[in-house]
């Protein structure tokens, strides 16, 4: 009897190890949808982020669905997503940018180096608009429909594989 109880800890551990090994091989779905989806954009009017383009405001989101891209010249992933934004713009998507805590010279420098896909860029010096639309990070991209309602939120940089998703969401928002 005593002999058997001595093996008990090992048996319990073997059970745990098997379970953990099984769980490690399973895919995990950790996606949480933003509560801002379906909400209208809050009112805002931002000054131009640099001299080359006009600023951005709530009133710009009329007509066709547009992309709202939260970015900054100091943000590394924003460099990574620049080619994808460029590609989206070439497909006729209008992209309105909001530069977070940025300086005009830096914005101009970034656009000169990595390309400029934006129609307008507003400057959000204290993250005021960013927080109001439920964005907690840079970069983030929102699909806004013709009535100014947030239809889709993409968190993080846009990879090449995300471009079709964004195009489909823009289509849906028509």
């Amino acid at each position, binding site marked *: 009897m*005593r*002999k058997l109880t*001595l*093996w008990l*800890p*090992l048996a319990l*551990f*073997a059970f*745990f*190890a098997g*379970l*953990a*090994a*099984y*769980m*490690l*091989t*399973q895919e*995990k779905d*950790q996606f949480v949808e933003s509560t801002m989806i379906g909400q209208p954009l809050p009112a805002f009017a931002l000054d131009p982020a640099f001299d080359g383009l006009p600023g951005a405001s709530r009133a710009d989101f009329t007509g066709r669905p547009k992309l709202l891209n939260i970015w*900054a010249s*100091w943000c*590394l992933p924003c460099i990574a997503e620049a080619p994808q934004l460029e590609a989206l713009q070439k497909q006729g998507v209008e992209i309105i940018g909001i530069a*977070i*805590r940025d300086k005009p010279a830096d914005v101009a420098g970034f656009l000169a180096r990595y390309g400029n896909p934006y129609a307008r860029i507003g400057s959000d010096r*204290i*993250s005021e608009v960013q*927080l109001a639309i439920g964005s*907690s*990070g*840079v970069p983030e991209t929102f699909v806004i429909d013709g009535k100014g309602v947030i239809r889709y939120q993409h968190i993080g940089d846009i990879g090449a594989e995300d471009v079709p998703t964004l195009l489909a969401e823009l289509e849906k928002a028509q």
Partner: protein
Amino acid sequence: MIAEIGLAALWLAAALAVLQLVSGALTLRAGPGQTNPLAIYARPAAVVQAFLAVLAFLLLLRAFAVTDLSLKLVATNSHSMKPFIYKLTGTWGNHEGSMLLWVGVLAASGGMLAAFERRLPERTMAATLAVQGFVALGFYAFLLLSSNPFERLAVPAAEGNGLNPLLQDIGLAIHPPTLYAGYVGLSVAFSLAMGALLTREVNPAFARVMRPWVLGAWVLLTLGITAGSYWAYYELGWGGWWFWDPVENASLMPWLAATALMHSVSVLAARDALRTWTIMLGVLAFSMSMLGTFLVRSGVLTSVHAFAVDPERGAFILGLLGLYIGGALTIFALRAGAVAEGKRFAAASREGALVFNNVMLSAILAIVLLGTLYPLLTEAFDVRVSVGPPYFNPAGAIFAVPMLLVMAVGPLLRWKSDKPARIQFELALIAALVIGVIALVSFFGQFPLLPLLGLGLAAALGVAAFLPLRGRTLARVPVATWGMVIAHFGIAVSLFGMACEGAFSEERLAAVAPGGTEQIGDFAVTLEAVTPIAGPNWTAMEARLAVRQNGGEPVILTPQARSFWSPPQSTSESALLTKWNGQLYAVIGNQAEDGRWQVRVWWKPFVTFIWYGGLLIGLGGILSIVGRMRVDLKRRAASTMGAQRRADVEALGAAAPQPAE
């Protein structure tokens, strides 16, 4: 170049771990009395390995201090604009760096054991060092093969990504290193237990060698958990001090096992009983440390402690776990039957009380382990559950309440066997305190059951902790006994804080316009203004709250809603007003559309006692270590003096003239 030296140091340390393992194993195989030519290398290998591993960690620390952005780890976790202190603490605020710290402490403990421990039989020591080397080897392999902290970027980054803002806090400077030192200190207890089991030397002498390591690790775990709990309390801004989060549980489980082990090893040292039990707990304590590491880093469980999780790393650690825990438990199952049974004792004795509480501690450990792993089990069947306080609190209390009662009585009992009638006055006093306090508190209002029980037990324990001193000359009480008294009193203090927080806390959540006032308890809280302010790497909305107690002079509290921009994240900085009898805890939330601000204020009576208690428990542990070490040193000095005197007497006897007939 510096980084390459660090990497080379790690590879060399791994090679020395192999030497330590081989040398120890060969000594063990040679059998008693024989020697193997490689035997002499085990100790030096452990010591040099410790220097190399610590060197590697210091070099990484330097890379973070100067923000060397050619290192991938620095570029992804640091930022040149970050305050200097957080650059340093950022070294262990990520997976690779914290694993390197883990391994550094592991090697340092092994080195200290090899350098200073001379009391164990040489074969047991060789087996212990072999096990320690084997454990270290696995973690070196993990670092070098799957989590290299010194990996270079092909092109240095222009700027780093920054550190999770929740971790940019002084709490991070002390909390993880303390906990790691505690976790890893238990590795020595594990190696010693395996060494003693392999050589069948489970006896009081072995227990005396093991005890300071267990006590030291336990003190560090206690302080680490206390600091971690306070950090979560003020940094997360949720007003709670313990969330039964998987990572918190991962630190609590080794603590529970170490607490049981510490008491069990004392019984083995003093009375030569509980031999198998001590070995089992020694294995269990370090197993829980490694399990915690696995749970945190593999991502199998969802937790607020977001380490960069990676299933591949998880698989590696799981493999190590299988090797070490599985191996140890197999040796335990094969060998423990051969360990001679220790001395027997009656149920009503100090050993009896200690065994009872060890079983209770193990039961609480099982409850916590089950609750932590249960989501893993149900997720295997695609059901997502979250196990929280409604399970842990009552299920834990079922065992905690009898344990605390026995803890009050246990130190009053004699070793081996005792009659409860001998201590009837003390028993009556304890019972009267529990019942009296519960009755008194219930008289004043309706409170939940658990905090009520907690208050009664805290009062009884607070008094009972000092009862072992009754009738003794205080100046002559051994330091280690003071340690026990203070640690037990600390439990009472902590329990009192927890119970008060649970029973008497008041909370107010209100939308307040600037100028508006809210009343909570004795305090009138006025929102004077909300202003944006900027820090070195964040901006915030800061509220100015004027707090008046009973209409007195106002104190200004400034809770903030902070936004960090690298990496972008918002955090809630609570503001605390600490009084001797509690804390006022204020948090600012979002602004509503009508311009009013969400303000959340708690009055938490005696909540600070939770952490004061934790500090007292740690102090008690430190006193015990100091007391034991002083006794050890005295004993060693006395035995050297005795040997000297015997030698002198023999020399005199030889020289003395023969008495005349």
